């Protein structure tokens, strides 16, 4: 409860004492948006941590070896993540549902265990030290980027691309019958998601003095966490996963005593949401939960994940 008390009575102090939390929420929100794009187009891809790793390591390595400015490092990380996204996307996009999920898990673990842990340049199992990290100052950068990302994603869902994605998610065959080039649009979604994940990874690396190749960072555990954002918040609306990220990331801070049981709570949430409200907190009607009584109600159903 102290958490909320401080949040509402003394926001400035709250900001200062919770910089790390807010920055993490920012990063996780960008990751959530990456997840949103693939889920919105009907693809259950769990590859985000892999692309994060690509973005993070590229950015930090460039800084360590070439001392290039931050913007360039991050840009390079993003581009490289996109390239890897194309390479991974081409073979796996034929796969459906569960098979795609498994293939992406294969990718992230093969990348982490096979490549990152074995290349001397990435520091192998010990990770990389990142002396030019800026945990406190970086928060403004992260939040600024988040706003840009959210705007982009919002406009995409309104455009022709977004409509095509929604159709593909519902029924690929029917989408084809309307002239939608399903394979190409799925690829665009996949690569865009990779780019966003790479972006988040590079930003996150900038906030930490150490790039850690562990499972919690770039492994299946992280992938499940990002999936949880989307399931909890709902993947029918671009703000859904962001809300999910907000809730899940803040949870351990709000319930300090129950920190230990965070996973139990997350597990219960997952089961409860998927059984009783598969469209997530936000569903499809936008921020319905905070809708004032006089706002017109649309009779829509939201798609469940997958």
């Amino acid at each position, binding site marked *: 409860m102290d958490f909320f008390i401080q949040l509402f009575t003394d926001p400035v102090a709250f900001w200062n004492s919770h910089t790390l939390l807010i920055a993490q929420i920012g990063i996780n929100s960008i990751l959530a948006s990456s997840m949103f794009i693939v889920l919105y187009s009907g693809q*259950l891809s769990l590859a985000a941590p892999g692309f994060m790793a690509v973005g993070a390591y590229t950015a930090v390595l460039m800084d360590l070896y070439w001392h290039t400015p931050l913007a360039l490092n991050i840009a390079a990380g993003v581009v490289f993540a996109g390239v890897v996204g194309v390479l991974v996307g081409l*073979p*796996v996009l034929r*796969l*459906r*549902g*569960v*098979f795609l*999920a*498994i*293939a992406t*898990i*294969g*990718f992230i*673990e*093969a*990348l*982490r*265990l*096979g*490549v990152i*842990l*074995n290349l001397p340049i990435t520091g*192998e199992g010990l990770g990389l030290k990142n002396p030019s990290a800026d945990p406190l100052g970086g928060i403004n950068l992260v939040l600024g980027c988040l706003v840009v990302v959210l705007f982009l994603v919002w406009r995409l869902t309104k455009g022709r691309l977004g409509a095509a994605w929604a159709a593909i998610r519902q029924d690929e*065959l029917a989408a084809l019958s309307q002239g939608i080039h399903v394979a190409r649009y799925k690829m665009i979604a996949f690569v865009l998601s990779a780019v966003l994940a790479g972006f988040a990874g590079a930003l996150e690396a900038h906030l930490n003095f150490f790039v850690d190749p562990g*499972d919690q960072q770039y492994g*299946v*555990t992280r992938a*499940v966490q990002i*999936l949880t954002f989307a*399931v909890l918040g709902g993947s029918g609306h671009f703000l859904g996963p962001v809300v999910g990220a907000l809730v899940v990331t803040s949870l351990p801070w709000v319930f300090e005593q129950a920190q*230990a*049981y*965070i*996973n*139990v709570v*997350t*597990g*219960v*949430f*997952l*089961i409860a949401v*998927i*059984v009783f409200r*598969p469209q997530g907190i936000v569903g499809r009607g936008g921020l319905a939960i905070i809708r004032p009584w006089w706002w017109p109600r649309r009779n829509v159903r939201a798609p*469940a*994940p*997958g």
Partner: protein
Amino acid sequence: MDQQILNAIFIGSIYALFAVGYTLVFGVLDILNLAHSAVFMLGAAVTYSLVVNRGQAFWFACIVGIAVSAAMGLVIEHVCLRPLRRRKAPPIAALISTIGLALIIVAAIEQGQPGSFFAWLWVDGPNSVAFPSGTIPNPTWHVGDLTLEASKVAIIPISIVLMLVLGYVIRSTQVGRGLRAVAENPRAARLMGLDVDRMISLTLVISSALGGLAGILFGVALGDISPYIGRDNVEIRGLAVIVLGGMGSIPGAVVGGYLLGLIEVGALVVLGSSARGGVAFAALFLMLVLRPQGLFGAQLRERI
């Protein structure tokens, strides 16, 4: 070198036993039960706790461990799967609900410290423990260069017998035919008088019992029991095995298990220990891209 091959066979047996349970559920229900690795861990943890914390005999503890795992199968069905079936949810939903249950099970063990809520189940928290020598029968023989520990060697006949028995049941008994009927066409099965819900419960019970047993064998033979043994060892490798062998195919799971064991040991020998982890997933990825149905699986096709 031969010792390595022997290790490959031991670990392959465990992979195979674990994967059989995995693939059984996929075959009958078309879903991936991601709580299976948590049940693997639970079997080992319960058995260990009974022996070390409550002084029970090893054999008794094993039986209870398997029973608890089987019971967890029922929990998975009633909590994660049946409510979704009633709501006609897509298969992906079951993926997520089983992930949720796995989180809960692992967290419960992780939080098992003396004095905590879960202390009756486990007291070692996140630590890795092993059965103290003397609590389990483990004669060791030396044959030439090879060291044979009974606990490791026993895995092979146990696994093989179980897989043969299961294969026989599925192929030749009425129950097995019933399971295959539910796997192929639940509606036809209902019209023939089969109680489909009960068959599904049976599938989960068998699958989870096998998973728990695999965990016990792992804990005994490799001396490593912690809340994370499922996640670290079999959660994703299990996926690799069933993809290699063909999802839904029991012979595929068996072959895939040994195949993965051999691939990993091969990579260890040829490329050094560092490559061991990534190899499984590289194999998984390649198989999915080149031949998604695996070695023994059926062709995947969508109807228009």
